[in-house]
């Protein structure tokens, strides 16, 4: 998590941003019950727990991306 000035990886940072995007899109799909994979009630109109957890994961990925990006020396 901790990187010194000048270190970091641009590629890793981009990877985390992509992961954040995937999580955010999945969060929307779960919230509107377009996706029903691994839910307790497949007939529910929305799956807020899954959506919120995915949203938190998206935020965590964005934080990780910011940590991973190369910092100016």
């Amino acid at each position, binding site marked *: *998590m*901790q*990187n010194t000035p000048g270190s970091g990886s641009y590629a890793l940072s981009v990877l985390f941003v992509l992961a954040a995007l995937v999580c955010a899109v999945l969060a929307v799909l779960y919230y509107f019950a377009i996706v029903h994979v*691994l*839910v*307790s009630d497949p007939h529910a109109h929305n799956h*807020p*727990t*899954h959506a*919120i*957890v*995915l949203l*938190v*994961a998206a935020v*965590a990925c*964005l*934080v990780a991306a*910011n*940590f991973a*990006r190369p*910092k100016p020396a």
Partner: protein
Amino acid sequence: MTTWQALFMGLLQGATELFPVSSLGHAVILPSLLHWTFRQSDPTFLPFLALLHLGTAAALLILYWREWVGIVRGFFTAAVRGRIETADERMAMLLLIGTVPGALVGAFFKGQIAVLFSSARAASVFLFCNGLILLGAEMLRRRSERRGVGRTEQEMAFKEAGQITFRAAAITGLSQVLAFLPGISRSGVTMCGGLIAGLRHQEAAKFSFLLATPIIAGANLLEVPQLFHSSAPLGLYTASAVLSGVAAYVSARFLIRYFRSGRLDPYGVYCLLAGALAFVLLR
């Protein structure tokens, strides 16, 4: 559910949530042993349990409110800066790493796991296993302790909660998934994770309590609104939740003091005995 049953459940939840003896296991086993007839499949039962858990989370927030102010502030500062500079910022990121994998696995697989092992008899077996986990972690810990010195001195050779590595925090956080099995204690497995990662007993308990707060609050906050759309006795349920919070607060204060020099052994032995006894009685 009668008034006394609801209040007893509140007290039981608050007292057992933070002790490494599995609150869920006790909530499944004890009503069966006492032949209580309330239906756990009732639509208001799950939101009721969620409300009790929120009482516990509130107690932990009150107990560690100074730490939480620093952690929340540290999270935003470090997240924007992209670099960790203070102890609070490091703790915020440790908790994030410890919470997200467990929350993801929990959200997607909790239902499947709970359905498979929801019987009181299965809970008694897992309670026995919980005892083995606690005693096993203590056995591993003893191997890395200095011999021939006092307990306090032995403990001081180990790390504080904020010094745990990020990998250890992630593994400790992920171990919370085991607690979806009724009988396996969430605080127990996270304390064991902390001990194996080289934390002092007291610091392992503190890290476990800090790790518990967002997961307990987050997982249960969504369930509670269902109570408002039902005919559930809200006053009684709220009183039970308050009782749960008070019991949790007292338990946490006791445990933090106890773990200055105490070990997990007594709880491990209790789980072995209680699990075995419940297994025999529930035939």
